[in-house]
């Protein structure tokens, strides 16, 4: 059971109040992209064992989408941050680094 904090309404609740929305920080490819880019955008997900970044929605709450940094092995949640960013905030990176030195995830580290 994950405990997540919604960055919009400030509620800290267990995961049944939220809904997972898959991998975070996906760059979207649409018209004009190559078939390979479009295929990778739709289907190629990293699904790591360890540090992971996801999108979540406070479905049974304020309804907002946000980001979560967590660990798929330990189920530890490093932190959550708003959806209005295409980068991982430095304070979240620092929290991950404190527990998993030298981590990397896709193009982020």
């Amino acid at each position, binding site marked *: 059971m994950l405990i997540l904090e919604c960055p919009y309404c400030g509620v800290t609740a267990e995961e049944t109040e939220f809904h997972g929305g898959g991998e975070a920080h996906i760059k979207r490819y649409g018209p004009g992209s190559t078939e390979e880019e479009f295929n990778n955008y739709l289907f190629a997900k990293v699904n790591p064992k360890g540090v992971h970044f996801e999108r979540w929605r406070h479905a049974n709450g*304020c309804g907002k989408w946000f980001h979560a940094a967590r660990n798929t092995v330990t189920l530890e949640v490093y932190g959550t941050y708003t959806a209005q960013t295409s980068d991982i905030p430095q304070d979240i990176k620092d929290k991950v680094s404190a527990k998993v030195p030298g981590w990397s995830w896709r193009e982020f580290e």
Partner: protein
Amino acid sequence: MSNPVSALQGAAYDGYVKVEELGLRGMITVRGNLASTKLKNAVKAATGAAMPKQRQISIADEGAVAWMSPDELLLLVSYDKVNEVIAAFEEAMAGQHFLAVNVSDARAMFRLSGDKVREVIAKISPVDMAQDEFNTGDFRRTRMAQIPAAFWMADEQTVEIICFRSVADYAYGLLKDAAEPGGEIGIFG
């Protein structure tokens, strides 16, 4: 002329806390910039209540305002005044980017009363109902078992609940079950 009725027409159950479906209540969903002075004034004029803080409900004599999200409020007014309240709200907000819509007939309301209301909620919602975590003035959107719901405590013995009208019957059954005599836990004193 149509004769509006609430979802369960005032059904009530005497469990170890009392469960009542409340009658029709005027409800207006407002979206906009909650920091705007114009919006604050329009909300105050509509309900008599001040802008609530994050996850709070602000209650006045004739109405109430609940904080739903960083850009959403729920105004509670009397059912027969909804249209005039919206008309006045729209006039006050002319030229602003906002939305005010009548959702009264799409919602149902319940009231729990008794000295064990906290534990009845705690049975069905993932919310810490301890006295130092949830109190009068707090407003929480969450779920009750399988449905979305929102509630607040009017006082220490009273919880008021809003859910979608389409699931009013489910909510009533759920609340009755949680309040059934013999199911007392006594965790909140």
